[in-house]
């Protein structure tokens, strides 16, 4: 992942007033791929093309074509990771794999992405080893709340009442 490219993401700007042009979409996609660590212009162009084809404006998290294309770019990567690592399409699992990839587990990963499937199999071990494991498997136990009987000034009175009450009034134990 190329960290020098990361800061080209522009936070908190007003939304664009007009629909983005094709050039603009490609430009932003290219910037995103570069930030992810793809430096070869041909690879960027190919990946951007695929992302544009996948981009679906009606997906819930992408209200406009540009965000749709960017989300599709991420999906493209996730698809590859899911195939390589045999992962379920679950956001946390995919994100963990993506973090491992972008964290440097596979040097020059774009080359592997464009290589035959066997190459991907070669890197799957390194990638799997780099996937973060935030917690062990569950080994649950129960921790019941303990009973603490607080002292009350009425306690002696209750004791007295219990002692004077007739046997018929007592609750059977």
């Amino acid at each position, binding site marked *: *992942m190329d*960290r020098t490219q*990361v*800061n*080209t*993401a*522009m*936070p*908190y*700007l*007003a*939304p*664009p007033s007009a629909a*983005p042009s094709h050039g*603009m979409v490609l*430009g*932003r996609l290219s*910037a*995103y791929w570069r*930030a*992810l660590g793809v430096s070869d212009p041909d690879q960027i162009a190919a990946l951007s093309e695929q992302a544009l084809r996948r981009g679906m404006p009606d997906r*819930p*998290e*992408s209200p*406009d074509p*540009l*965000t*749709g294309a*960017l*989300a599709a770019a*991420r999906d493209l990567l996730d698809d590859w990771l899911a195939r390589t690592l045999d992962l379920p399409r*679950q*956001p*946390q*699992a995919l*994100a*963990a794999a*993506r*973090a491992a990839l*972008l*964290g440097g587990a596979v040097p020059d990963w774009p080359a592997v992405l464009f290589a035959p499937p066997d190459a991907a199999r070669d890197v799957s071990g390194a990638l799997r*080893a780099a996937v*973060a*494991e*935030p*917690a*062990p498997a*569950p*080994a*649950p*136990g*129960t*921790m*019941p*709340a*303990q009973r*603490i*009987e*607080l*002292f009350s000034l009425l306690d002696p009175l209750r004791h007295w009442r219990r002692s004077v009450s007739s046997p018929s009034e007592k609750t059977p134990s």
Partner: protein
Amino acid sequence: MTSSVRPSAKGYVLRRSVFFLLTNLTTLIALGLLVSVFQSNGFSPMELLLLLLYTILIGWICMSFWTALMGFFTILFGRDRWAISRQPAAPLDPAVPPPRTAVLMPIYNEDSERVFAGLRAIHRSLAETSRLADFDFFILSDTRDPDVWVEEELRWQDMVRALDGKGRIFYRNRPENTDRKSGNLEDFCTRWGGWYRYMIVLDADSIMKGSTLTDMVRLMECHPKVALIQTPPVPVNRESLFARILQFAGSIYGRMFTAGLNYWQLGESNYWGHNAIIRVRPFLEHCGLPKLPGREPFGGAILSHDFVEAALLRRAGWEVWLAYDLEGSYEEIPPTLIDYAKRDRRWCQGNLQHLRLALAHGFNALSRLHFSMGVMSYLASPLWLLFLLATGVEAFIQTRQETIYFFGENWIPVWPVSFAVEMTTVLLVTLTMLFLPKLLALLLLLKDSRLRHGYGGMFAATLSVVLETVFSVLTAPVLMLFQTKFVLAILLRRAVGWPTQQRGDHMTSFKEAALAHGGHTLTGVVAGVLSYQYVPAFFWWFTPVLLGLLLSIPVSMLSSSIALGRKSRELGLFLTPEETDLPPVLRYLDENLRESEPVLPVLWDKPASRFVQALTDPYVNALHLSLLPESEPPGKRRRHYLEGLIHQLEEEGPDSLSAAQKRELISDSDTLLRLHALFWSRPPANAGMLP
């Protein structure tokens, strides 16, 4: 060498009988002296009040005095033969694999760099014991601040990568910090507790030597009836003058007090919340904390859970020990007087809550005493204040009474009886009880040349004790007023918050000092003028208290000085053995903080906001998303709420959002992904706004 035996029931009874007999006897003697002063003309209501207050306060001082004295003799004559570390152990089966132990670090909006530097130091020290494989590390975050949250995740990942800790070093952030620290630990126990026989609970500023951790596990293995072993944490690492004085006091007197506590408490000791090892199974079975009936501050969740957990373990028949002789357990203390008071404010409510538990059914006598001691550590302040006020009023009443020398026709004058000797004796007894332990601690240095060297030699240690005594006299009235204020606020049902501690060294500004101590100074002026005007004789007795109050602002500011702290160290004052000869684990911490280069490139720079970085940086975004717990998709109302926050972020920037709102945005995986795509879709037009 003394032979090692397990203490019998008779042993418990004998030691406690001696301790309580001495405590009660001394209290009665001191009380008798005061009674002899008051009884000449019968007791006025004010005198009765004074007697009552004095009984409570001198009893409290006597307990502390005899604890120190027993600790003194324990250390003087070698180690306590009934100490947990000296008892005969059940034989261990070498064929049985070593138990799994979890090292738990519960954190809440702490300085992540310091937290992880500390954990890495412990990890390295543990690795040197070759027993690292038996331990797993858990960072149990209750952090609410979104920037700190993201920073913690990155630091955790960095630690895992640097130490090859995958599958051994874990991190989780709770979606809701229900029941604070006790809830945090309960969450661990109920989710992963089944994997571990023991857990070692740390605090964010705890440091423990690897061999101490393995010793704790060994002791637990040897003593299957023991559920908890508390180590005495020695205060270290601070540089301000205030903290160095406290570190010195904690170190030189602390070891005597902990030895004394162990002497009479034995297997019915207490839990101080951290730097302790706990057997997980009994903790799961017996330490689920209930909510107390009623509303805060006395009802609701139990705040100071540690005492209660120890009492519940004791109630279930398990032993709780204080391993006073186990070294290599450290903590850091607040750097300034004001931070110290802030910490007191947090602890005060929890301790006062124990007032209800001290009388609850089912707890054993010593657990009740622990609760009462916790209460008294805060209630003593308002009682001292009341005692001083009552003494002043009584002195004023005495000055108004006209002395009659001639009764009736009698021409021989009847001189008033002077009680100066008795009063001076009362004062001397009280002062002896307070200050003799300091002298005893110094005497112990004569026995041990290694320790003497550690404290900078006999002369430097003596001078440090004198100066520390002066300092504690000056700060005691200020802490008395602080604690009285906290107690009153709690009694008036004004619940205190749970603010994050400012743990790092920093100077107290004049503004901060004036705001915190302005009232103290004013109180000092008013009390001084009134006592000088109306009870001049009392005024001079009162001067140490008045001086402390009048000088509170400069004392607070000067004592927070790091330069003065360093200067005092150069002069060989307030030295502790840990400063003289830095233990390796503290050196590792120092190295980690000064020199360590993170493995993760994202940590090489410190951006303005880790929150924004979690939205924009593909790696940080992915890592953060991967650590979010799986959750149900948000409902329609919540989706609309998040939508509103997204628009606010887009239009007004991250500074317009509160920390809680930012947290909500990065707690939802769909929102996180959407914001990531949204930010990358914007042209990089305004580089100045980049994170």
